[in-house]
């Protein structure tokens, strides 16, 4: 178990290093960094201060080293909009984003697995045809339009739920559903295939031959054996989920990191953008680790490998 986790953890620094390298290259190599950080009305004093701060007069390798050192210390610079350290601004919003992503993930797991299981059990019947079609449609559906449709229907027409903002439970329903829509179609299709395949496994025949109830066969023997591909897929899609949270937060004015990031771009608040990108990447890497831990708890063969 520990050996397994260690092998997975080894790539964590590599991933983070790559992210930092990319952010660094884009900021320092694609043009004059001063143009990126400061707008047209800059004063010579501001330029001088920035050159000092970013050590723009030193060789690139040294700049990268200093950049790394600052990032490790959590120093992304000061936010231009808020006048406080950029990291602080981002961490303030982290809770909101985690809340949204968490609820969406829960919805996606429940709806996706239930939908896929029903489709598999009713294979080629009406329920399967409908569910499978919705899943394929969902894959082609831009989630930002889905969010807009949900607003039109549940908020504007029925008036059941608020259109945007943060508040009680009602506020999170539509954004979470919109974000969950990134995962649900694939969860459905993977679960459907998985359940159909697992039902052909010999051990399911063994379980049925024991004479235990069908529900138990499904819940104890079939579904756990389909979780592996679902979890692996989730690990691969975490990036997409975070990307989706940026769009969802923008549609619903959800005060999380994603919305902060987009508005910071328009404010040219680069320190906040970079801090947000780094925090999100760390979150993704850690979440991947959690997925791996879940996988190893599920499957003894992975635990021992």
């Amino acid at each position, binding site marked *: 178990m520990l050996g397994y986790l260690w092998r997975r953890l080894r790539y964590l620094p590599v991933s983070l290093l790559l992210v930092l390298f990319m952010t660094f290259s884009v900021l320092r190599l694609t043009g004059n960094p001063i143009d990126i950080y400061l707008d047209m009305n800059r004063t010579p004093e501001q330029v001088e201060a920035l050159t000092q701060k970013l050590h723009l007069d030193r060789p690139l390798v040294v700049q990268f080293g200093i950049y790394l050192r600052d990032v490790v210390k959590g120093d992304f610079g000061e936010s231009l909009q808020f006048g406080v350290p950029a990291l602080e601004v981002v961490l303030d919003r982290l809770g909101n984003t985690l809340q949204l992503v968490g609820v969406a993930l829960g919805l996606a797991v429940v709806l996706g697995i239930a939908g896929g299981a029903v489709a598999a059990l009713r*294979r080629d019947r009406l329920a399967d045809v409908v569910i499978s079609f919705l899943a394929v449609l969902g894959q082609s559906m831009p989630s930002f339009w889905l969010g807009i449709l949900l607003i039109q229907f549940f908020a504007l027409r029925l008036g059941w739920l608020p259109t945007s903002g943060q508040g009680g439970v009602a506020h999170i329903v539509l954004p979470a559903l919109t974000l969950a829509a990134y995962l649900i179609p694939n969860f459905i299709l993977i679960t459907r295939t998985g359940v159909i395949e697992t039902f052909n*496994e*010999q*051990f399911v*025949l*063994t*379980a*049925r*031959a*024991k*004479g*235990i*109830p*069908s529900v138990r066969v499904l819940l*104890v*023997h079939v579904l*756990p*054996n389909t979780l592996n591909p679902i979890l692996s897929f989730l690990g691969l899609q975490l990036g997409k989920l975070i990307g989706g949270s940026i769009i969802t937060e923008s549609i619903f004015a959800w005060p999380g990191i994603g919305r902060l990031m987009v508005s910071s771009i328009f404010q040219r608040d680069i320190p906040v953008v970079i801090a947000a990108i780094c925090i999100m990447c760390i979150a993704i890497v850690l979440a991947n680790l959690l997925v791996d831990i879940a996988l190893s708890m*599920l*499957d*003894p*063969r992975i635990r021992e490998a």
Partner: protein
Amino acid sequence: MTTEQRGTTDDRLLSVRDLKVTFLSRHGSALAVKGVDFDLARGKVLAIVGESGCGKSATAMSLMHLLPRRSARIEGRMLLRGSDIGALSEAEMNDVRGKHMAIIFQEPMTSLNPLLTIGYQLGEPIRYHLGLDRAATQRRAIELIDLVGIPAAVQIMRSYPHQLSGGMRQRVMIAMALSCDPDILIADEPTTALDVTIQAQIIELLRRIQRRTGMSVIIITHDLGVVSEFADEVIVMYAGRVVESGSVYEVLEDPRHPYTNGLLASIPDIDDEGERLQTIPGNVPNPRTVTEGCWFHPRCVRKGERCEREVPTLATVEAASRRQVACFHPVEHNELRELSDG
């Protein structure tokens, strides 16, 4: 193992009448079992013999209602102690499966759930059918592991399937099948996937347990050695039909159907060095193709004109025994097997 022991109506535990299994697929339907009759007496071992594809596994699986409902249609009567289990629903059948009838499969490597411990999987039927509590379930499971000859039972309970060898897993499967003292154990080619040395151990284990518990066994096999060691009665199947049945002694010593004769002739005989091993020419016919007349006639060395037109029915050949053969030109009594050597 003589005909004196043949059963009366009273000790017939299981009677199968006109069992038909049709596999449905998008390419059409295939009749895999074409009307099979047999009886299983209490405490007896019945072997179903034939090449792969002859319908013997489909017969076994249909008894347990384990064929997929969407792609297999089962007809006929299956009387377990006089009541027809063929008509039971899935939920009703769950009271029969594992409790009154249990099954072990050919492939022990994939027969156990890879994510659950042996103890859990072994305990499942015990808790469900016998309603025992956790501790009693555990005791019963350990008892069963001891019974099937696996050492260190407590440790095995905590193991996962991938940590055990094929032979061990098959022993676990046997333990699981025995957990509720079933009346009937169906063993579907239980040794085919195992090493030769392990095969003998598993058959020996099954025989020992059968003697001790007095349960009835249906063993599906293509290994006539297993049949002669273990079974009391035997039915030989070909292309979904019973072509010959009787006591093991009679059928193996004095086969009447050319197919049985061919099967026996294809067993290597250690005493007869230099003799060329015989095979039955051709293959088992695909159930989707339609053959006129006797299904075996394309491969038969004794076929006559009638065999190409009519399907022979299973008929008693000797008044004194229950031997039955479905053939127009059965091998004559004590006729030498070599006759079939072309």
